């Protein structure tokens, strides 16, 4: 009946991927797992501590604060960048010289390295030599990111919006360009208002790129490190100390490798969980 050759040679084809994933993800992560369940003093003295580090980390008020801050920050980033990106994409010219120019201008922020972006804004916002800070202070708005927590917070948010909204806009733009003209023609014939066109044609067709945009922006903003670090070093106080910076301080500053490892895993799981929730929520509505 079954004349097919039965062997397992095909597994060899999977091997390269398996090795790649092993070395790039699994092995490093297992090292972290290894650290998270032991208290290591030196090569010879290491003690298994079970879930102690996890318990300690989960009860650390410092981490609770930065986790909360992190969630608020990521939520703000998404709430601003996604609608703004869509709006920009809708306004961008669709053809001709202007569309290429727009695309190039939009790409520029994406090409600038994180720490350069941080430095640009750090100088830009200074009250003495920075254009933004100087102008704001002179028109009577007191602004000082180094002293005022909310100023610092808003500045970090604006940096991210400035840096990454283009990405969302470009993704949406590509999604919009993929909509065949007949949809717009049909909508005109059906006398759809521009809101209806957006709601029933453009938004549904942009859905898959929006999913990518939301995931990318969530993951990136949830791991933000460089910008606040360059701008204020996480201050003033702890106002712009986000999770990754807390983690760095713990791991490299205090050399608490055990708790830091446990924390990394929790951090990773949070990102995974939230991304999964986004993904299922957005793909679930696909199927009725």
């Amino acid at each position: 009946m079954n004349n097919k050759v039965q062997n397992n040679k095909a597994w060899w084809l999977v091997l390269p991927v398996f090795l790649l994933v092993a070395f790039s993800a699994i092995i490093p992560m297992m090292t972290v797992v290894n650290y998270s369940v032991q208290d290591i003093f030196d090569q010879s003295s290491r003690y298994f501590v079970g879930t102690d580090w996890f318990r300690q980390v989960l009860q650390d008020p410092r981490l609770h604060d930065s986790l909360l801050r992190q969630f608020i920050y990521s939520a703000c980033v998404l709430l601003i960048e996604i609608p703004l990106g869509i709006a920009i994409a809708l306004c961008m010219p669709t053809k001709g010289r202007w569309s290429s120019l727009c695309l190039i201008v939009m790409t520029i922020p994406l090409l600038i390295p994180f720490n350069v972006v941080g430095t640009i804004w750090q100088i830009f916002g200074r009250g003495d030599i920075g254009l933004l800070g100087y102008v704001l202070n002179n028109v009577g708005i007191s602004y000082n990111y180094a002293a005022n927590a909310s100023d610092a917070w808003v500045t970090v948010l604006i940096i991210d919006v400035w840096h990454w909204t283009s990405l969302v806009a470009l993704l949406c733009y590509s999604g919009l360009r993929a909509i065949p003209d007949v949809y717009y023609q049909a909508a005109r014939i059906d006398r759809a208002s521009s809101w209806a066109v957006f709601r029933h044609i453009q938004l549904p067709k942009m859905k898959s790129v929006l999913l990518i945009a939301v995931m990318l922006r969530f993951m990136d903003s949830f791991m933000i490190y460089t910008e606040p670090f360059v701008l204020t070093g996480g201050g003033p106080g702890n106002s712009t100390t986000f999770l990754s910076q807390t983690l760095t301080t713990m791991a490299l500053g205090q050399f608490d490798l055990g708790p830091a490892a446990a924390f990394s895993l929790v951090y990773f799981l949070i990102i995974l969980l939230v991304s999964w929730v986004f993904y299922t929520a957005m793909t679930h509505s696909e199927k009725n």
Partner: protein
Amino acid sequence: MAEIRLQNLAHSYSKQPTGPEDYAIREMSHIWEQGGAYALLGPSGCGKSTLLNIISGLLSPSEGQVMFDSRVVNDLSPEQRNIAQVFQFPVVYDTMTVFDNLAFPLRNQGMDEKKVQTKVQEIADVLDLQPLLKKKARNLTADEKQKVSMGRGLVRDDVSAILFDEPLTVIDPHLKWKLRRKLKQIHEQFNITMVYVTHDQLEASTFADKIAVMYGGAIVQFGTPRELFEKPQHTFVGYFIGSPGMNLIEVTPQAGGVGFGDVHLPLSVAMQQRIAEKPASSLKIGIRPEFVHVWDGPVDDAMCAEVSHVEDLGTYKILNLRLAGHPLKVRIQEDKPVPEGQAWISFPSQWLMVYADEYLLESGHE
């Protein structure tokens, strides 16, 4: 409900057209009567979609006028013209249910919800969409989607005309037939002017009462399917309609008729006069493969042609002949004997057409 009149209409995509070849639509005047079912038939790139878009208002003609019931509508958008159009690829609003899709044009007009309900139910009945009303449009098959997009045109009772732009291209062959029937039925029921663009002659002739054949941006013939078949006004119509197309042979005028090679074809005196009156750079005769008479043996005025091969298409056969070096196709019944080596044929005079510069010469009295 409207009569559509095209007056000296022409369209060019280039800003400064210099010659006729710059025109996608060459100057034409034309009337589509209210309530008629029309087809625009032609090969790809002949300008039929351009013409359709001009009628619907998606495109504004560069010259001439489009009139709906003697009102010039050149500058009106499709929504102002009250046109419904069904496109080649079915357009449905994915996220909405079939019901909401059908209700969409009505709701956009601000119709009250009760009336929307009854209208949609009515159309769903006609199109057999009742069982699908609650389904999301995204999950439909191509033919169901196409029915939904037709339905969106039909629900509005104020439409002046429904235009179809090759609506059955993406539909499976066995469903094409059903949808075509449905369209015909709808046309009879609603008495709306319908214009149907297609490159499929079968589709055109089953749907339309009258067919406009387009070629090179011009309507070369406008007539019933029968007229197109029996009396093609242009060699292109002869070639494009029918399967296989008309036999067209270049001829030269001779005393008493025309001829090619050593073949002489006598023509009526009136026709001879017409040919003499109108010197043309090319003169052709045309005869449909169905109308070539095949004799069983040599008879008086029959011509002898070589048989090169026979195609058996199941329900009929096509004889490929060579007459004085010219290829000639003849369609014969399946049960008829196939002549071997040689065939004796003649061209019945009522089916022998003469074309001067590609246009039919009519002798005037018949």
